[in-house]
């Protein structure tokens, strides 16, 4: 995951898998995101977007979690090339 291009989780298109690279949030939000399973190295996939585009549902570690774009902006991901393991 060293030199690959990172982008925001909120800009990941539906049904494209990403791998969490780092979390830019601090303090409480950071803790919360880590608790929900957004730990570096985890595969995450946006599976649904609400009609107005804001909360997006992500599949992560066998669960679906919705994040607002403010939160999604703070998570940096790299694209998961096919074949990467689903942790």
């Amino acid at each position, binding site marked *: 995951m060293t030199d690959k291009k990172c982008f925001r989780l909120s800009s990941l298109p539906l049904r494209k898998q990403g791998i969490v690279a780092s979390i830019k949030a601090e303090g*409480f939000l950071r*803790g*919360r995101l880590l608790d929900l*399973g957004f730990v570096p190295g985890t595969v995450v996939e946006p599976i649904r977007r609400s009609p107005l585009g804001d909360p997006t549902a992500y599949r992560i570690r*066998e*669960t679906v979690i919705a994040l607002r774009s403010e939160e999604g902006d703070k998570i940096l991901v790299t694209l998961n090339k096919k074949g990467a393991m689903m942790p």
Partner: protein
Amino acid sequence: MNFSNLFGIPSAPRRHRGQFSRRNRERFSLPHLSSSLRANRKSFLSPTLNSKEYIIALAGNPNTGKSTLFNALTGLRQHTGNWPGKTVVQYRGSCNLKGKKVTLVDLPGIYSLLTNTIEGEIARDFICFARPDAIVIVVDSTCLERNLNLVLQILEITPKVILCANLMDEAKKKNLHIKISELEKKLGIPVIPTAARSGKGLNKLKSAMDDLICGRITTQPYRLHYSAEIEKAISEMEIELAPIVTNGLSPRWVALQLLTGDSTFINGIEKYLAGKQIDGGDSE
């Protein structure tokens, strides 16, 4: 119709019924809630409390079947539902463990002890400051991994923990095989597979609870080690904290909380320590 009142049993309030009664509405207003929590904590810590009555808390992630397990163990019929966030206050019920009267406390589900939601604080404060005789952590066997975060956090506070791997029926449906004995070895605590909905494994869980509160089994909980830098800070703080932090809190754990800098939590610790000193600190 409230049957539990007919029999004089302290009722576990249900949200779906009687939610318009004054009493219940008050329970859900925040200032009252926090004061009743404080009262609860007081009553749990009060030295006058009959020492033969044990308190066991049910903790775990949201939607792992804590309330179902609570009902199965107490025979109460608290509202259950398949959605997270159903339980927002703690419910209590009593249960009989081989002749011993045990008060079970059903806590709201949380992902982590670091939380700022009201139900999260209820669960967290209870786990940290009410010092139950045992904590049963209920986890969802179909996604164990995300549940173990909370397990490790609770193990930092107290060794008196049983892991209840619930929803084994669902795990079976998904063809998941969980190596219970391996999990036990790694975590150093008893792990009991259950399916609370059908009542499977409850007897085993009961006898494990009984063994733990009677001291027939001792646990050796897995200890999380942090980076060298943090460990160094912890050990320095532990020395300073040891004389200040009494009443059963672990200095290592308090040091960790101070390092995370969560002010609401630090206030809670301060209040707890101050409260005990006023009480005379002579209990136990």
